[in-house]
């Protein structure tokens, strides 16, 4: 097969690109993170002179990384699921119902994405306070849901639009129950969109700084708080490298799990014969 040969060539090219794309940056980060505090890595040394895990243990001991990761990884799945549930009806309406002002409504649904961070940090949080929501966890959950609804709405709208009316009709004609209709006509087509929306909202929630910090600090610290302390205006390479690596690794493992889920179900999505 010509296609398989082409694929081997393409994979080879891609491996090289990925080395530059991922391996070099991450390799450099790993090196920086291992620089021993007693001997800084400076020009003209091509490689660090002394390596140790001192920075890793120190970082783990002096910051609340474990706690922050615990918070972030509890927060994000809850936000992702709630956002998905709240977004689904709106996406359904955008994709499958006709009504006046749909274009305007779709435009309005993008609003949370365009609000600059300082506006969110100052006004959204003070709005939450004015609404009397002082409890940190629910306030952050609500803030994140509203901020990330547009992603879920957009992605699910695309998915809902792909559901074929003839399949729905056929299922109905065959006397299928609403659930059977949903799981046979809708679900297979929606699945990749659902997973994509979950992943995107999940990542956004893990990364969001403004609301989580202003509302959550000092007792509900999340990952970005620590990240920004070490990577903000005053970022310094070795410590930044340690924080980056600690935070990125679980994310990538999660992504690979998602990918597996997406693959095992996604292939079926080819849907009915046309």
């Amino acid at each position: 097969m010509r296609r398989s040969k082409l694929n081997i060539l393409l994979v080879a090219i891609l491996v090289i690109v990925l080395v530059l794309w991922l391996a070099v940056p991450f390799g450099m980060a790993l090196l920086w993170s291992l620089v021993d505090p007693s001997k800084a890595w400076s020009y003209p040394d091509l490689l660090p002179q002394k390596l140790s895990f001192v920075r890793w243990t120190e970082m783990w001991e002096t910051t609340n990384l474990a706690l922050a990761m615990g918070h972030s990884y509890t927060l994000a799945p809850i936000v992702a699921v709630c956002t998905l549930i709240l977004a689904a009806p709106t996406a359904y309406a955008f994709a499958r119902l006709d009504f006046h002002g749909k274009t305007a409504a779709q435009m309005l649904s993008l609003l949370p994405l365009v609000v600059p961070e300082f506006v969110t940090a100052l006004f959204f949080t003070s709005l939450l306070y004015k609404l009397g929501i002082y409890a940190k966890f629910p306030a952050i959950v609500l803030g994140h849901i509203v901020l990330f609804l547009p992603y879920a709405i957009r992605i699910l709208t695309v998915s809902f639009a792909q559901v074929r009316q003839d399949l729905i009709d056929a299922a109905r004609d065959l006397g299928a129950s609403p659930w059977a209709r949903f799981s046979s006509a809708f679900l297979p087509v929606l699945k990749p969109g659902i997973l994509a929306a979950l992943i995107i909202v999940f990542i956004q929630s893990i990364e969001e700084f403004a609301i989580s910090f202003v509302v959550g600090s000092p007792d509900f610290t999340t990952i970005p708080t620590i990240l920004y302390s070490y990577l903000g205006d005053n970022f310094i390479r070795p410590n930044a490298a340690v924080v980056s690596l600690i935070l990125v690794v679980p994310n990538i493992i999660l992504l690979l799990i998602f990918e597996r889920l997406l693959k095992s179900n996604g292939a079926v999505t080819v849907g009915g014969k046309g």
Partner: protein
Amino acid sequence: MRAYSPSNWKHTGVVLLCLLPGLGLIILLIGTVISMAVAQSVGYFNFSGPSEFSLIYWQKQLASPFLHRSVLYSAKISLLSSLISVGLAYMFAMWLRRPFPGSTMLGGLLKAPMMVPGLVAAFLLLNVIAFHGFVNEFLLWTNIISKPLRMQNDSFGTAVIFLQVWKQMPFALLVLIGPVQSIHNEIFDAARDLGASAWTRFRKIVLPLTLTAMQAALILVFIRAAGDFSFQVIVGPREVSSMAQYMYTVQRLYGEWNEAAVVAVVLMTMSLTGALLLAAVSQFLVTGRRR
């Protein structure tokens, strides 16, 4: 249209009920937040002095050449980032359309940058393009250059666009891959039998069938790139500000909260209209050409 028929009422009710939990929540909360920003731009919510109505902040900022330049610059960066990200994402989506050995792993690796927080991404790139970083040392070692290149703050914004694409392409891929995979093989086979080239097949089949997904990807990438602050500060050009950067300048350096709110409102308007224009143009190019 029969305006008052019961079925119409019922239909409107269903639509409203559907929109309530999603769009309703957005309008209620974000609508309030945006009106607060607008109120600040006309003189209220002043943190450093008394609050009163005034249009002076709008007059001052709209006359500022720096605001104009940052609007144009941000529009340029977002447009290029979204076109490149979506273009590359299509390429990978087409390639990964049919599973082959290792395609799951590949899909995962391609999407890995998405999991890297923006600041970390900028930090990783800095390590690579630094004056004595990997790229420069490699080029020096191979004698391609004799003096290290300064890649950190090029005046076009290439480094920023690179970072945007690195970070946003996976999002575009995630949005596009489902719809691309759901196109039937028979359609492609039929087109190939009719002698259509790969490009024609892409243009006549894939693009129209995945138009909504493409628009979603373009919109999301454009808006995210338009609001960029951290990439710009670290690797962006020095002689021009991104809109978010300019907004912080007005707020921090000038201490003008109300004027910063003007810039915020301009930024929101620009990202929204830019994204919608992009979607409209792509619709026209894809569907208009078919007729």
